[in-house]
């Protein structure tokens, strides 16, 4: 995946400081009309350009209001929100027998905001844009999966491609004569390719990009959804009005409740909460896109007045400590580190059990990947506050089994990478003390948050342990286990290739990826999750939570699991 692509999604893990529980109040969304206001401290929506949009909340926002994709998740609370449904397509896609070809048929009556029809050509054009170097930050899944001969290196995207180069792409993404059918040829079998197409990478873009080609399209996207951009000023606001050329008949699920949608940027973080809590300013009909300011969590969740307008639910992330297997070669020591760690104290730093989340038992989160989750066994004696006795046993075992490694960790010590910050430094102190109890010496490498991933993804600069977090790109553990533990998977901070059993593991992963039966595939992912934990390739952290609150005149707010943020589709203003 040699691509100029930026995963902003991952960075978001560090922005999320705390999270929690309450039944998400999914009130019935009746109110149509009025203006719904979203408040955020951000200067802009990171990217509205569908081929560049790769942040959970921005994806959810865009998919609800502006950009339709081939398929989508059915908006809804809880498990209902994770179901894949047809959007621009008439169904959720048809794979070939060998799972290397996927075909989607487009609906009738689908148009852009100017009334021009959306055909296969516009979808294909949109996908081709994701190859262009000009458009950064979007996910690189098209390049990874499409059978373009020579791949990314051979096709530079539509802006620069010669006729021959374009032919390479057109061979991989085929349009029928009538423009109603689009066929994707993949370079390897994929049972869940249709989930990939829920990403906006597979959304249509007009061939002339509405006159704003390349970089400029981001602020001037041509809508295919129920709203369109009336005005968009960075640092001020994004104003959406109804797209008169959108038809509810052509859309299976979008409710399009309010008449207007406003995103107010550059709002003071504390100010946002004051508006919402007190119903001042825009607060009555506003939702904070930034969640709740940490200082205000206690107040919001202890207020009776806020009871019906707050939520505390699981987001999409799992936090963990990646264990660099190339350096930490001794399994008992890896396990000893886990047993000795005071996870209870670490969680308290991040909002405690109420807002921080649950202790993870692996990298698959039951909230968003229920099909793929099974509780991990074998670590029942891992006390959250640390099991020093067990850890000491493991260290004693290591002393005989791998004496060199034992000597290294107890004398020179091991290094853990942290994205620098107050919480990171406090966390280091806690862990250092806990590990010292079993003789492990812990050192810290505090890295500027902006360059953190650059450092830990480079095997030469990576430490023994690295703080990390992950959320699935779509609702299949195929976007968790392979990227995290397969060599070149994209985020293999654990350097699993160094493990003698890596080949066997990789074979099992390939098997699971190619399994077209979702239920048995889920069992396979659960087993691999168990495998990863037995190998202690990661030290699990938390199944994190997120909190939101909104004004008293809004209805229909719930957490939409695939994106770990409010489901915008049902949000309306009380009549």
């Amino acid at each position, binding site marked *: 995946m040699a691509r100029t692509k930026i995963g902003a999604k*991952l*960075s978001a893990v560090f922005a999320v400081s705390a999270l929690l529980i309450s039944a998400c109040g999914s009130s019935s969304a009746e109110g149509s009309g009025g203006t719904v206001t979203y408040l955020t401290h951000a*200067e802009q929506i990171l990217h509205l350009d569908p081929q560049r949009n790769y942040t959970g909340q921005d994806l959810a926002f865009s998919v609800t209001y502006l950009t339709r994709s081939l398929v989508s998740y059915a908006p809804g609370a809880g498990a209902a929100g994770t179901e894949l449904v047809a959007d621009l397509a008439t169904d959720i896609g048809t794979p070939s027998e060998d799972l290397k070809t996927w075909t989607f048929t487009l609906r009738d009556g689908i148009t852009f905001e100017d009334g021009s029809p959306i055909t296969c050509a516009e979808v294909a054009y949109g996908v081709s844009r994701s190859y262009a170097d000009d458009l950064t930050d979007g996910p690189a899944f098209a390049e990874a999966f499409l059978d373009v001969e020579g791949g990314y290196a051979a096709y530079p995207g539509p802006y620069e491609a010669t006729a021959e180069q374009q032919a390479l792409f057109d061979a991989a993404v085929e349009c029928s004569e009538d423009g109603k059918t689009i066929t994707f040829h993949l370079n390897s079998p994929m049972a869940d390719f249709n989930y990939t197409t829920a990403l906006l990478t597979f959304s249509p873009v007009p061939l002339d990009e509405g006159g704003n080609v390349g970089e400029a399209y*981001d602020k001037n996207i041509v809508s295919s959804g129920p709203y369109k951009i009336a005005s968009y000023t960075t640092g001020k606001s994004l104003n959406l009005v109804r797209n008169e050329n959108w038809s509810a008949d052509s859309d299976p699920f979008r409710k399009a409740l309010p008449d207007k949608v406003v995103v107010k940027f550059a709002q003071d973080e504390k100010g946002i909460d*004051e*508006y919402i809590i007190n119903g001042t300013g825009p607060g009555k009909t506003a939702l904070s896109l930034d969640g709740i300011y940490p200082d205000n969590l206690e107040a919001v969740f202890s207020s009776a007045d806020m009871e019906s307008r707050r939520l505390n639910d699981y987001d999409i992330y799992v936090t963990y400590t990646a264990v660099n297997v190339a350096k930490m070669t001794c399994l008992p020591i890896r396990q000893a580190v886990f047993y000795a760690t005071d996870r209870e104290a670490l969680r308290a730093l991040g909002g405690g059990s109420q807002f921080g989340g649950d202790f993870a038992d692996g990298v698959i989160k039951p909230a968003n990947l229920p099909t793929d989750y099974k509780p991990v066994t074998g670590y029942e004696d891992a006390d959250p506050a640390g099991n020093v006795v067990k850890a000491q046993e493991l260290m004693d075992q290591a002393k005989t089994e791998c004496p060199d490694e034992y000597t290294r960790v107890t004398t020179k010590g091991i290094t853990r990478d942290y994205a620098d910050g107050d919480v990171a430094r406090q966390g280091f102190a806690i862990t250092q003390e806990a590990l010292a109890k079993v003789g492990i010496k812990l050192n810290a490498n505090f890295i500027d948050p902006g360059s953190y991933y*650059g450092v830990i993804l480079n095997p030469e600069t990576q430490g023994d342990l690295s703080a990390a977090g992950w959320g699935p790109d779509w609702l299949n553990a195929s976007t968790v286990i392979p990227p995290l533990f397969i060599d070149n998977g994209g985020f293999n901070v654990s350097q699993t290739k160094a493990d003698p059993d890596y080949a066997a593991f990789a074979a099992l992963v390939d098997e699971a990826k190619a399994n077209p039966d979702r239920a048995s595939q889920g069992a396979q992912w659960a087993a691999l999750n168990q495998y990863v934990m037995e190998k202690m390739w990661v030290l699990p952290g938390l199944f994190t939570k997120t909190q939101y609150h909104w004004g008293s005149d809004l209805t229909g707010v719930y957490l939409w699991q695939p994106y770990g943020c409010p489901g915008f589709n049902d949000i309306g203003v009380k009549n």
Partner: protein
Amino acid sequence: MGIYIFRRTLYAIALLFVISLVVFVLFSALPFDPASLTCGKNCTTEVIEANRIRLGYDLPMWEQYVKFLQGIFIGRDYGHGVASFTCPAPALGYSFFRQECVTSLLITALPPTIWLAIGSVTLWVGTGILLGIWAARRRGGAPDHIINVLTVFATSMPTFLTGQMALTFLIGKFGWIPPPDYYEPYQNFPKFFSTMFLPWIVLALPGLAIYARLTRGFVLETGSEDFVRTARAKGLPEKTILWRHTLRPALSPLTTLAALDLAFMLGGAVVTEKIFSIPGLGRLTIQSVIQYDLPVIVGTTILAAAFIVVANLIVDILYSVIDPRVRLK
């Protein structure tokens, strides 16, 4: 005078180039890699290198600077193939974070900052001078003491604190004042005014206190000058003595200070703009620093420096107008 201004202008332009070079060198010396910052998930060294080329950080620093200078005079092209585009001269670069030419970012961010600066500087200079005069004339009296206490209070309260409190309480908690928003004054003056006056006050408080103290000092000092006694001996009314004879000598230092303050404020009021959601240069600057958006950092720095340089020139010229003893050479 004409020659003087011409010479000073040349000097100012040269200075701005030096400043831009210094900013360039400083940022290249910083221990971070702008290209690696563009990389998150799915990051590989190839991705970092590709982004480095895209952002132009692959070139040696001197070449980046030459390209920057070229952009100022002939504009600069970005992008590939049909997606290419030009930032027209005077181009100060292109922000890949904001997807806009730096020059147009600056032009957009300038009016809010100008209004904020003019409003607050007028408020603080005007009110500060009036309070200072009042305190001086009631020297030792209650107003003097009250103003003294207020100035200590106002100067010791940082803007982020007063601003945050004003926002949290006056707007957020009680809803007495409309929430922050920015309107152009010529589009909707009442809304412009109602959303700006709180930022004006917050920003003006510390400056106001300083001007009150300074003016008080000037009035007391000048009030004991012989020429003020002369004015009184002529039978001039007290009003004339105060406004014409006593304050006139204070005009030079106050004008200098006010002009430099205004220039400084035109560089952007970071904290106030951030708290009150004003899309001005200050917020642009701080955001670009947070994002390591080098072209914008260079652009805002040069603009802010230009304001200071121009203000200094204007102050020097004003000096010669205000004080007959000063002659420009």
